[in-house]
């Protein structure tokens, strides 16, 4: 992540400086703990034995007893399981579409041969800074018949102009002689994009793919206004109803929960905690990759100025 560039010092470090260094370290570790404790607490709550859940307090980070009952209940809930599938579908299809459309546009916009290049560049900037009114967007989606369809959610932010511009910066680094040589050989634009530009900017695709992927996984608002059938809801929307709005009927009311004998003993809080953990899990899984690409990208961008 961050390169270690502090060589051992020859100068003796004054005691005051050493002291402040330790204070800083402790303060920052406190910040880490502040992030970790609420997360570990929810994990502990979700894994605790239902009979001992009441022993789990706000700062408890180790489960009391052990039980997977909360996750089993969620697993048995058709609405919940369906929402995971929906989220996975939206994320994978959405991200693939994002990368294809964004890279095609970025490639076209970086080629000097693009007709009306200036016009298209200005248009892109205008799109970036003009925010369309929510109601007007809603009415357009309604009019073209995408209402109630997962596609209304998937297609939202097909091209994020900020990412488009980042991708253009990467493409501009590719020597134009490579592309021109391919053109002379009669390669089509798509071939050049696939066989020359893509292999040379894999890290751009990885970084921007992660940006888009996290965006799709976390999206709930467009889903809440465009989807009408709860069986199409993504996980984040179910989570919002169940945890943020505290709406028991949305999950528990769908029946499956009561088929469990233990249901009466289950803690509502523990079930909410499990839902949150499930929603965080995919982010945690790709997080090492995020740290590798994303953070390095931001660091390098900052250094280059």
């Amino acid at each position, binding site marked *: 992540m*961050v390169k*270690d560039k*502090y*060589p051992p010092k020859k*100068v003796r470090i004054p005691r005051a400086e050493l002291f*402040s*260094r330790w204070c*800083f*370290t402790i303060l*920052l*570790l406190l*910040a*880490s703990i502040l*992030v970790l404790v*609420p997360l570990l*607490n929810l994990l502990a709550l979700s894994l605790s034995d239902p009979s001992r859940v009441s022993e*789990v307090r*706000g700062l408890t980070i180790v489960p009391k007893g052990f039980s997977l009952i909360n996750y089993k209940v969620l697993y048995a809930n058709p609405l919940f399981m369906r929402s995971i599938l929906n989220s996975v579908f939206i994320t994978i299809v959405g991200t693939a579409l994002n990368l294809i*459309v964004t890279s*095609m*546009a970025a490639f*076209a916009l970086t080629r*000097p*041969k*693009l*007709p009306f290049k200036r016009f298209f560049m200005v248009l892109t900037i205008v*799109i970036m800074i*003009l925010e*369309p*009114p*929510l*109601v*007007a967007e809603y*009415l*357009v989606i309604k009019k*073209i018949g995408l209402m109630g369809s997962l596609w209304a959610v998937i297609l939202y932010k*097909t*091209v994020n102009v900020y990412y*488009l511009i980042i991708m253009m910066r990467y493409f501009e680094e590719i020597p134009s002689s490579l592309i*021109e040589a391919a*053109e002379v050989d009669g390669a*089509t*634009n798509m071939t050049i*994009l696939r066989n020359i530009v893509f292999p040379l900017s894999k890290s751009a695709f990885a970084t921007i793919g992660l940006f888009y992927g*996290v965006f799709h996984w*976390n999206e*709930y608002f467009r889903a809440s*206004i465009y989807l009408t059938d709860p069986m199409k809801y993504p996980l*984040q929307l179910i989570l919002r109803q169940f945890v*943020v709005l505290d709406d028991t009927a949305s999950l528990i009311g769908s029946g499956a929960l009561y088929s469990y004998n233990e249901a009466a003993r289950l803690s509502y809080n523990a079930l909410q905690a499990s*839902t*949150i953990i499930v929603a*965080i899990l995919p982010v945690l899984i790709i997080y090492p990759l995020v*740290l590798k690409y994303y*953070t390095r990208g*931001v660091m*390098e961008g*900052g*250094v280059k*100025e």
Partner: protein
Amino acid sequence: MHSLSKKKDWGLVLLLAPALIYFLVYHIIPILGMSMAFQDYRIIGKSPFVGLKHFRILFSSPAFFQVLRNTLIISFMKIILYFPLPIIFALMLNEVRSGFIRKFIQSTTYLPHFLSWVVIAGIWIAFLSPTNGGFNQLRGFFGLPPHDYMTDKSAIRWVLFASEAWRSMGWDSIIYLAALIAISPSLYESADLDGASTLQKMRFITLPELLPTMVTVFILNMGFFLNAGFDQVFNMMNDSVISVIDILDTYVYRIGLVNMQYSFSTAASLFKGVIGLMLIVSAHCGSKKITGKGLW
């Protein structure tokens, strides 16, 4: 060769086409749809032109001014009060010499940036819960009674501030950390030889080197002053505190898509859009002028 590269290639427009269709559906047509702010929107039939009617209602409505006030207060807290936090964070992190500890701090504090506001609201509602939340347990250690912050009008804006800092402080510090690492170590070494104190090094080396980054970040954030964070407010809002944290974007959503006053909501959007556009363009120009880096 040169004449060949000058010939326009219409095939490239084809590559651009999918993006253009997306822009058309999700951006251009909705932006043209702003005209309904000057009409009484009808689902069936022609919408009659009513001029500035909706703007007159908007500007004579006390609710709108409360919303505007909330937006400005919350933005002030999240942009101006919050501003030094990531800088302090980066300065402290830069002093941590152990690579392992530094990586641990970074990996944990960057994480919340990737969680959705739905998840974060869930975490914070649990953490601040008056019955079994971690924060109230901490209060208990100091002999204080539990307090329900999520429904307390005088506390909720600070909850927004704190949860924003919790989510973003680590992540936002990266840009400063990058600038700190770029400072040449020889500057510090020669200052050490001259016997400069930690504070003097901070005042005469570190801060001047960080200034361009600070100016860029600050100015660009000012461009988004009217946003105040829809997703955060939307997920942390409840009936007890709506009057103090209802912001322009949540207001536009509620009157537009919940109450279905399409034209009125669009008028409010247009108001926000015009002021926002002026802010963004001046932020961009200001930043370009001072630091040479803008939004585009």
